[in-house]
């Protein structure tokens, strides 16, 4: 029989648990003492304790922990999942840190699907010393195996990460011993392929998993690919099949609602989100989505409930959103209560003191006044918006621009909305869908013919700018091409084709004249901006890979943002 000392010694050989920094988070003092004793028996010396989420955040802000044992249920305030999310988003954890979520019973969170930040393991109480050690070792080894993949992922070199997955799967097959991580590796690979804009390869990976066993996440993955490809009815059926198999797989509800929205069936989308919100109410993005769909449907009561819930969750969560306040202000406008709306708009600007939120609050203010029939104040808000636009050259995202243009036309402002719509077209000169949308806004403002001319001129302006840069590049004038594209980017900061070409030209220059850190950084900055604007582009993945190959050590640093196998 193996004694405790032998058991500890034999496992300590592979991992030195004694030197690590530990944090125990539990609201029950007895459990904290118990876990501390267990860790001490593993040789641990540096053990901190917290009895609440807030206390844990303070400690996490000061000390880099190697291992965190965190109870899910922490009483008042943040729960364990919210502590984990905030710690990851604020970058308070090393990629190698182990996060173990402890709970009294099998949690539904572990099977929800798309919880963005998954812990490394879930432990169910009671936890004996032996179990703790076995699980720590297992997580550690898995993290070791995934480390190179996670690193490539963090650097957004998705194609290299996918290759590493393939290599690891092949190594497992060679050893004859079945590789216990094979399914996880295939899941990772599928996600990397999605991020690289290669849905066919992602589908292959999901199919390989499904050939072996029915996994809901793989089925849902296939459905998402179908949806992205516009096969909405097939996607809808697949998502519903997943829910029928496992009604706790919440991600499928969120996706099903999106499918219904794209099919124009807002009522269905709303009822799906209502069910999802009942099963798993504490998600900011879900309540926001729910509220926005209700708002579109004109269901003021449900929208209000969703936005209020969204704000309430946000109190303890790092993932809060200005959208909930803005949506709620719209709700107040619809209920003919502009006073309450204005209070909310004041509050949101204090809570989120950014230019973007200031602008969007002003747009909402105009809409609320317009809706409640106070046309004088609506016009005043419009004038103030116009003023804000002249002061700052920065423009918000496309959806906000369109919203703002619509409002400005409605309250009688003329020049500013035209400028905004031209800006949108210049930055999306090859999107026919957006051109239709912009044309409709012009139509509503009774500017159909003028609008069509504006659209045509803006398209040409963008195309000319891009073509000139490409011409310089193709004729070998690389330095001039780079300078030209820098100007083009300044003029059209969100035009995907210009951004891609700018990065391509920088990379070509380095391929011909050798690696230069300044040019490489510039290219990375451009590409990361593209990925934020529109994730999942094949050209993004290819250019990131070319960049990594140019770098002297074959990888890009520093990592852009934390990411991991368990994200």
């Amino acid at each position, binding site marked *: 029989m193996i004694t405790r000392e032998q058991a500890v010694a034999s496992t300590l050989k592979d991992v030195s648990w004694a030197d690590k920094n530990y944090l125990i988070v539990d609201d029950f003092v*007895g459990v904290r003492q118990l876990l501390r004793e267990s860790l001490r028996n593993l040789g641990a010396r540096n053990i901190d304790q917290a009895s609440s989420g807030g206390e844990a955040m303070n400690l996490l802000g000061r000390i880099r922990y190697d291992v965190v044992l965190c109870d899910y249920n922490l009483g008042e305030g943040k729960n364990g999942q919210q502590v984990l999310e905030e710690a990851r988003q604020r970058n308070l954890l090393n990629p190698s840190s182990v996060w173990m979520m402890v709970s009294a*019973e099998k949690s539904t969170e572990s099977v929800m699907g798309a919880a963005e930040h998954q812990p490394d393991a879930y432990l169910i*109480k*009671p936890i004996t010393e032996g179990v703790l050690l076995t699980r720590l070792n297992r997580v550690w080894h898995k993290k070791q195996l995934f480390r190179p993949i996670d690193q490539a992922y963090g650097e957004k070199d998705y194609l290299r990460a996918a290759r590493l997955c393939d290599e690891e799967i092949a190594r497992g097959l060679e050893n004859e011993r*079945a590789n216990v991580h094979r399914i996880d590796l295939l899941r990772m690979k599928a996600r990397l392929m999605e991020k690289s804009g290669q849905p066919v390869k992602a589908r292959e990976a999901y199919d390989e998993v499904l050939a072996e*066993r029915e996994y809901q996440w793989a089925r849902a993955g296939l459905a998402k690919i179908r949806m992205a490809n516009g096969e909405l009815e097939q996607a809808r059926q697949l998502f519903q099949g997943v829910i029928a198999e496992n009604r*706790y797989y919440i991600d499928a509800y969120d996706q099903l609602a999106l499918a219904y929205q794209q099919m124009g069936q807002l009522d269905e989308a709303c009822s799906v989100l209502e069910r999802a919100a009942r099963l798993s109410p504490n998600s900011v993005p879900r309540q926001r989505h729910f509220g926005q769909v209700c708002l579109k449907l004109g269901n003021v009561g449900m929208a209000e409930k969703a936005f209020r819930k969204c704000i309430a969750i946000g109190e303890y969560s790092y993932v809060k959103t200005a959208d909930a306040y803005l949506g709620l202000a719209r709700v107040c406008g619809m209920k003919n209560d502009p006073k309450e709306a204005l209070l909310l708009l004041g509050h949101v600007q204090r809570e989120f003191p950014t230019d973007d939120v200031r602008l969007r609050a002003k747009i909402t203010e105009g809409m609320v006044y317009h809706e409640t029939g106070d046309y004088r104040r609506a016009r005043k808000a419009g004038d103030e918006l116009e003023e804000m636009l002249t002061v700052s050259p920065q423009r918000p995202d496309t959806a906000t621009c369109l919203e703002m243009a619509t409002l400005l036309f409605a309250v009688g402002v003329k020049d500013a909305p035209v400028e905004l719509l031209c800006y949108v077209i210049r930055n999306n000169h090859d999107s026919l869908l957006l051109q239709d949308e912009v044309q409709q806004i012009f139509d509503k403002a009774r500017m159909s013919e003028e609008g069509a001319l504006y659209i045509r001129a803006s398209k040409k302006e963008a195309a000319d700018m891009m073509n000139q840069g490409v011409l310089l590049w193709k004729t070998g004038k690389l330095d001039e091409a780079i300078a030209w594209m820098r100007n083009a980017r300044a003029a059209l900061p969100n035009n995907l084709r210009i951004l891609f070409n700018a990065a391509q030209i920088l990379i070509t220059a380095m391929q011909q004249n050798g690696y230069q850190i300044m040019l490489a950084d510039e290219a990375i900055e451009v590409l990361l901006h593209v990925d934020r604007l529109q994730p999942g582009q094949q050209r993004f993945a290819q250019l990131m890979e070319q960049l990594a190959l140019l770098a002297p050590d074959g990888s890009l640093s520093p990592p852009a943002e934390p990411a991991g196998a368990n994200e």
Partner: protein
Amino acid sequence: MDDKPHAHDLFVFLASTAHDMKNSISVVSGTLERLLADAAPGAPLHDSAAYPQMAQMLYQTRRLNDNLMQLLALYKEVGTPAYPLDIALADVAQLGAQVAASNRILLEAREIAFDIDAAPGLCWHLDEDLVIGVVNHAINNATRYTRDRIRLSMMAVDGMLEICVEDNGDGFPPALLAAGAVAGRARAVDFGANSAGLGLFFATEVAKMHTHRGAAGTVRLENGGPLNGGRFILRLP
């Protein structure tokens, strides 16, 4: 059940009460494990009178924990799509190591030899927490009936994973064997007739939740085998 607001409130209340009880059980069983380790033969604080009594307390605490866990899971409607089944690929030998880790102190204290026979490199798709719960419960039961040896074997047999907990005691009484024979059939277990009913029912539900290509898991009780005692057999597709 949680589609109705009232049922949902009740469930939240149950869950938070269970959370509290689990904390208490954690502290009791953790403390007992530590006391047992300190009082073990050969340890400086060895206490021959208290040692077996503490072992009995640990055994009872574990029963309490298992029963609580099973009741909770049943409230969540095990076996219906409502239960959060979480299937993943698991290394069978690692699973065995974890079972051994969670039972080691108790088995040592009761001077029961424990053997594991796991096919090396064998991996299986299963809900690890549920399966470990079932196996731990079977082992805890066996500690009461065995003479001095328990064996856990895990191997692939005819395309199924066969997990077998066997002991060298007198074997299951006929009534329990009969219960084991019907456990696979709907809800035929008579909870009133024997205390093992809940555990067996739960194990059967867990087995049935594991399905693959039309096949579902099963639970069987029998006497005999290499140790010539009771055998609890869980088979998963």
